[in-house]
């Protein structure tokens, strides 16, 4: 009786549906930013104290309009496809192997969408795969019978400036603050400011980095539920904007648009801190199947 019940609640999703959605999301993400990001750039332009900085932010806004109206990708670095799959445990996937279905979606999206093929098969030999696959895929099992897909193409100008700091517990909040500031200030112009900074505190070496990337998906302006973390997010945003780096590093008061922090339990001997920097072309597309 129990096994009958279980089978009744399994929901089948066809792999082709996953492929088709991912294809569309790759294209969508590269031609149009989410409204919160577009607004953050426009707000930045209004508040910016440097005349050159203001002009640059206005061009970035203009760039978004041109990209959408004329169907030119917002940035030529259409990124390595980073795909998050939150899979309800009552889902059954039929058809192709899930990873293959995702990569086929990326392949089609990057080809049909006139997006750049920026992936090499081997990190040392470096032959271009010609179709921007494979994607980097993060899977998580959740409750329920849906799949929530996030496609977040990641450009490497900013990715290259990201860091992991294995701090000591005694370094505390101050240590975390210094680590984030160090990462952003040392990146300077290279990460195409104004940046969005994702921070992961706790977990392990890879967990803090992964949390930092997930933090980039959060809506600009939204904050952590944990009071001290929310305060840290606001403080860091202010401090980064006092660095003077400014839009594309040419000086000004708008160096970051948001700082988002995730936390996780960690070992008694550790304080891992991941800092994933994203430029102002912070792309993501989300769909629920």
């Amino acid at each position: 009786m129990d096994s009958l019940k279980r089978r009744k609640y399994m929901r089948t999703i066809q792999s082709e549906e996953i492929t088709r959605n991912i294809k569309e999301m790759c294209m969508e993400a590269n031609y149009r930013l989410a409204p919160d990001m577009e607004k953050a750039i426009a707000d930045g332009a209004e508040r910016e104290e440097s005349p050159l900085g203001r002009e640059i932010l206005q061009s970035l806004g203009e760039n978004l309009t041109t990209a959408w109206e004329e169907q030119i990708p917002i940035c030529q670095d259409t990124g390595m496809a980073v795909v998050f799959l939150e899979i309800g445990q009552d889902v059954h996937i039929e058809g192709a192997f899930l990873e293959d279905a995702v990569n086929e979606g990326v392949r089609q999206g990057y080809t049909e969408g006139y997006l750049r093929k920026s992936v090499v098969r081997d990190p040392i030999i470096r032959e271009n795969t010609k179709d921007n696959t494979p994607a980097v895929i993060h899977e998580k099992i959740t409750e329920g019978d849906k799949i929530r897909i996030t496609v977040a193409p990641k450009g490497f100008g900013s990715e290259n400036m990201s860091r992991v700091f294995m701090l000591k517990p005694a370094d505390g909040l101050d240590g975390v603050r210094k680590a984030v500031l160090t990462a952003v200030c040392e990146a300077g112009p290279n990460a195409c400011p104004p940046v969005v900074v994702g921070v992961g505190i706790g977990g392990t070496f890879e967990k803090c980095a992964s949390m930092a990337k997930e933090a980039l998906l959060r809506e600009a302006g939204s904050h952590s539920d944990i009071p001290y973390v929310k305060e840290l997010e606001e403080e860091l945003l202010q401090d980064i904007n006092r660095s003077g780096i400014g839009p594309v590093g040419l000086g000004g008061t708008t160096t970051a648009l948001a700082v988002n922090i995730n936390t996780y339990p960690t070992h008694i001997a550790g304080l891992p801190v991941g800092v994933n920097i994203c430029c102002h072309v912070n792309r993501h597309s989300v769909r629920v199947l």
Partner: protein
Amino acid sequence: MNLPATDDQLQSLQAGDYVYLSGTVYTARDAAHARMKEALDQNQDLPFPLKGSAVYYMGPTPAREGRVIGSAGPTTASRMDRYTPRLLDLGLKIMIGKGRRSKEVADAIVRNKAVYFAAVGGAGALLSKCIVKSDVIAYEDLGTEAVRKMELKDFPAIVVMDTEGRNLYDTAKETYCTLDRQE
């Protein structure tokens, strides 16, 4: 300013100048630079004449039918730093990219009276409209990293490092920095 530029024109530029560039540039980034280094080491010809030339560090998205080029903003120049002093010593005069350069590149810029411009990072769609002609001239197998000869028209660029060694990335930040020294 028209490209190729004269030495006088280059020397008249100052860090912070906002310039509209028109004329010939060549694109080359990581993979192309690696091949050009090989070519130089083996005494082979480079894909384009270096003397007086301008290089734009950029790899575009594919062009839609009827268009000259896809999205075409700058890539981070520092990845090409290890190849650059030699190219400057051999006559390269203008570089367009984004981000800081190394001390070796800074010295080579002054030594050779060259100029490094920044184009606005992330404005790939807008910048593509300032490119009126683009042809792959070498390393076609590199796809987006192939060497292209391009014609620019009123392409906006900001002088970051001039022939006298001034650096806008350093000076501009100081103007707006209000963090305490120990932070």
